[in-house]
């Protein structure tokens, strides 16, 4: 069969197939261009279809009580049709809109690339002065028109910068990734829930088909608009956020750097979510000037940074409960095991400090008075493996899956981590001692701490934290409830009871470090933390929950470089819980508040 290779018969077949295919193309071109050429020519002259997008209305955002937090306001956008615009009017347009000529020229060039025969956005959200000037010079500015559009508008009662996030004009990078839906000038959610729920909020674009002649002039609707696709408005979001608690938390954090996160321990719904310093979201809703963007982006206080989910600081003494739970559950100690605290602990040639001389303490006392020496010794008894195992159950060291995209897993070291970083066999128990009091190589976010507080409140049950409770469809008038995954920390009830009692005493009993978190008439449990910081003053933590017997709110407060957690963070947490549980701050004494206290007692 060797002679079959490229044989003359095969050559003929090969050439025959090629010739046949070319003949087919030839015939088709002859038919299209020669026979029907005139007809197609006419069609090209007269009637070509173009599709013009119709932008839907972006969905609204409400809080848990149905208070409107984010909606849309009308705004005026200057549209420019490149083909109709006379370049000699550039200086006039430039002076009216106070836009440099070269920027307008650049925008016209981009618009031409997209389509020079239909209007493209030139400037969003113009002022009333600019609007009236444009009206006045209308006759001199062919190809320039005004279009009504909508822009995001925010409730004045809360900022919510990091939870809502901003929606702004799509960037080139975003456009490249989503070419199938978006066009230049479209609005896209870029951070927070605006980004996470972009496809829910934005709705679905519609299309109008219009007929156009070969000169690019619009003749009219195509086929009486029979083929037009209507746009679908965006869906509304109902959050778990309580706008009043959010407002209280924001005002208490004014002037500070840090974060507050409050969740409902029974559902994982986020009640308040603050990161400070924050910024005014409406900067992004119209046109963001380069100066505004530069100022925000280069502010040394980093207002764009979401401290509630992206920071990873050592949790300090708030981590003591975790160690106590691990020890009690594994039976390593019981409630009668005691340590005598002389005010410091020596291991090898290193000395680890305590705040006071606590004397003889058991596990409940040690949490109550925040004794370091007890937990240094306990950490050596428990060891790294059991500690990090329980830590993982609480969600430390990994992403929580909260419904915004900005999140940092933090760091919960385990054996593998130490082997990797320090080398196998090159680290010993001495490396672990600080972990017992939440210092050293461990990093957590305020959101993770709020989950931890919720799990302590519910004795080991906690839910993935989430902002959105339900989605509302205006067209069908139906709600869609969001599902939330549940997690459990499987430890003995005995362990939970002792540790929670320690937390209760830390706030409610004398010598407790968290007394400043007390609320009139309600038992609060919690724990302070002070994270040492090599670069300045310590970071202040507080995490806790209330009411003690029937927890309805769990909260975490972090204030950067503020000193002791008990002094700075605990009062903020107390006021937030008070606002949520009473619906107002009662400690300053109104009539209804006194009645409320009486009723509670």
């Amino acid at each position, binding site marked *: *069969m*060797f002679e*079959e*290779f*490229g*044989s003359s018969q*095969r*050559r003929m*077949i*090969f*050439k025959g197939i*090629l010739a046949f*295919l*070319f003949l*087919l*193309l*030839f015939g*088709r*071109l*002859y038919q*299209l*261009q*020669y026979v*029907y*050429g*005139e*007809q*197609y*020519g006419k*069609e*090209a*002259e007269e009637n*070509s*279809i*173009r*599709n013009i997008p119709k932008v839907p209305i972006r969905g609204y955002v409400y809080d848990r009580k149905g208070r409107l937090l984010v909606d849309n306001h009308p705004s005026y956008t200057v549209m420019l049709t490149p083909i109709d615009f006379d370049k000699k009017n550039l200086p006039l347009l430039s002076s009216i809109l106070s836009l440099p000529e070269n920027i307008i020229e650049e925008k016209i*060039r981009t618009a*031409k*690339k997209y*389509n*020079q*025969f239909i209007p493209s956005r030139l400037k969003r959200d113009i002022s009333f002065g600019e609007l009236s000037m444009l009206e006045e010079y209308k006759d001199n500015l062919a190809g320039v028109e005004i279009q009504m559009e909508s822009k995001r508008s925010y409730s004045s009662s809360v900022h919510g910068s990091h939870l809502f996030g901003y929606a702004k004009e799509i960037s080139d990078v975003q456009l*490249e*990734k989503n*070419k*199938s839906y978006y066009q230049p000038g479209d609005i896209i959610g870029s951070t927070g829930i605006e980004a996470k729920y972009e496809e829910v909020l934005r709705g679905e674009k519609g*299309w109008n*088909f219009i007929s*156009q002649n*070969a000169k*690019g002039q619009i003749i009219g609707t195509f086929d009486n608009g029979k*083929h037009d696709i209507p746009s679908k408005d965006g869906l509304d979001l109902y959050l778990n956020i309580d706008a009043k608690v959010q407002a209280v938390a924001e005002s208490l954090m004014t002037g500070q750097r840090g974060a507050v996160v409050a969740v409902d321990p029974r559902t994982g719904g986020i009640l308040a979510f603050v990161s400070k310093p924050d910024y005014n979201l409406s900067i992004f809703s119209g046109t963001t000037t380069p100066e505004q963007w530069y100022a925000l982006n280069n502010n040394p206080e980093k207002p764009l940074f979401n401290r509630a989910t992206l920071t990873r600081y050592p949790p300090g003494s708030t981590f003591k409960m975790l160690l106590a739970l691990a020890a009690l559950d594994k039976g390593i100690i019981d409630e009668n095991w005691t340590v005598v605290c002389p005010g410091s602990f020596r291991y090898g040639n290193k000395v680890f400090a305590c705040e006071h001389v606590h004397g003889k303490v058991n596990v409940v006392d040690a949490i109550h008075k925040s004794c370091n020496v007890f937990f240094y010794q306990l950490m050596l008894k428990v060891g790294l493996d059991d500690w990090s195992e329980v830590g993982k159950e609480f969600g430390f060291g990994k992403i929580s899956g909260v419904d915004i995209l900005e999140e940092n897993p933090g760091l919960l070291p385990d054996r593998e981590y130490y082997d990797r970083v320090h080398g196998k066999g090159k680290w010993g128990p001495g490396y672990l001692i600080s972990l017992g009091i939440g210092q050293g190589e461990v990093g957590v976010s305020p959101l993770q701490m709020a989950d931890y507080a919720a799990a302590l409140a519910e004795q080991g049950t906690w839910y993935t934290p989430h902002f959105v409770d339900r989605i509302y469809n205006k067209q069908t008038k139906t709600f869609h409830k969001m599902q939330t995954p549940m997690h459990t920390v499987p430890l003995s009830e005995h362990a939970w009871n002792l540790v929670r009692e320690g937390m209760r005493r830390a706030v409610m009993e004398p010598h407790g470090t968290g007394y400043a978190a007390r609320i009139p008439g309600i038992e609060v449990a919690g724990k302070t933390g002070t994270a040492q910081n090599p670069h300045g003053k310590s970071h202040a933590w507080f995490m806790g929950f209330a009411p003690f017997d029937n927890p309805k709110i769990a909260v975490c407060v972090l204030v950067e470089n503020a000193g002791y957690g008990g002094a700075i963070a605990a009062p903020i947490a107390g006021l937030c819980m008070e606002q949520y549980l009473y619906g107002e701050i009662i400690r300053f004494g109104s009539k209804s508040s006194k009645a409320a206290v009486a009723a509670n007692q």
Partner: protein
Amino acid sequence: MNSFFKEYFDTVLFSTVIALAAVGLISIYSATFDAYAGRDFYRQLTWVGIGLIAMLVTMLVPLRWLQRQAFTIFFSSLPLLILVLIMGRRVYGSQSWLGIAGLGIQPSEFIKISTLLALSSFLSRSDVRATDLKDLVKAGGIVLLPITLIMMQPDFGTALTFLGMFIPVLFWAGASQFLIIIIIAPAFIGVASIIGTTPFLLVLLLLGIGLYAVGGNRFVAALVFGANALIGLLVQLVYDKLPLYQQKRIQTFLDPNNDPLGAGYNVIQAKVAIGSGGLWGKGFLHGTQTQLSFIPKQWTDFIFCVPGEEFGFIGALIILALFALLLYRGVRLATITKNRFGSLLAIGITSLLAFHIFVNIGMSVGLMPVIGIPLPFLSYGGSSLLSYMIMAGLLMNVYANRKEY
């Protein structure tokens, strides 16, 4: 000197490639000149320059070395496809682009060449027989590897081009024609039976004639014929059971005219553009459809519309003639060359070119479904142009070495 030059340099092929690249540049200029002040044109011009250098370099690489190193080249090129899956950029729905030093590279364009090299090298080995089923399966394995990776992007059109190269190469290498018919018949039968009963019967008739002409075992032939008839009926049965929206999707793919405002929009606009060109065309930069950007992607996959509209039937015929000349040269080269590796390489490149030309122009004139593959030498895009220039360089290499065994 002159005769030496003629002996080693295929002037006809070289001139044809230059002419095609020039037509491409003119078309790209016309389609994009007003938007970015000719930015795309200058980019493509740069790529033509780079391509010419690549072509001449490829021509000078010793052919025997290529034959020996074919598998090394093949296996070292495959990881690019894996890389593209992991960190590639997504463009128009498939992940086929790799960003290297700020340039977008589409590895699949180059994998076509390395696969052909490996396939040709394998089939030209003295111990490999194209008539041997075991060797055929091995050859199939070579092609299946890149096809699988490209389908994962997913880039259906590009994956299909590998078959457009593989089957002709097998055919040329001497594989049983009977077997080739068995391989390709079900695909044709399947598509035809979805279009309708008449096309199905027509293809079935063609299959009958083909099987008869090829000869072979009459009993097996009858069996194959029966099996294909059954496949056709089954496809029709399954198709009828599909939900209506899926049927519509398939119909729209096969005939875009069914959805004039959606998938068919490009095709109808393309047909209007080409048709309205008439006999002589509307003149350079005077095509209304081109200048009004009525056809999306007209400088990449729908580039043929631009000369079609602006230079008319005459212009289109000149382009077809240039392509025909190129393919004719390729087949001739495969015939006259004395070494089998070169011959297979030439026939493989010719088939790849023919497949791209027919599918791409066929799509623009509404003969073929919309399959996004570029028109050789004309479409905008560095990777594809460079890969075709390298293929042309390989053809010229085969020409220079045609007298060596």
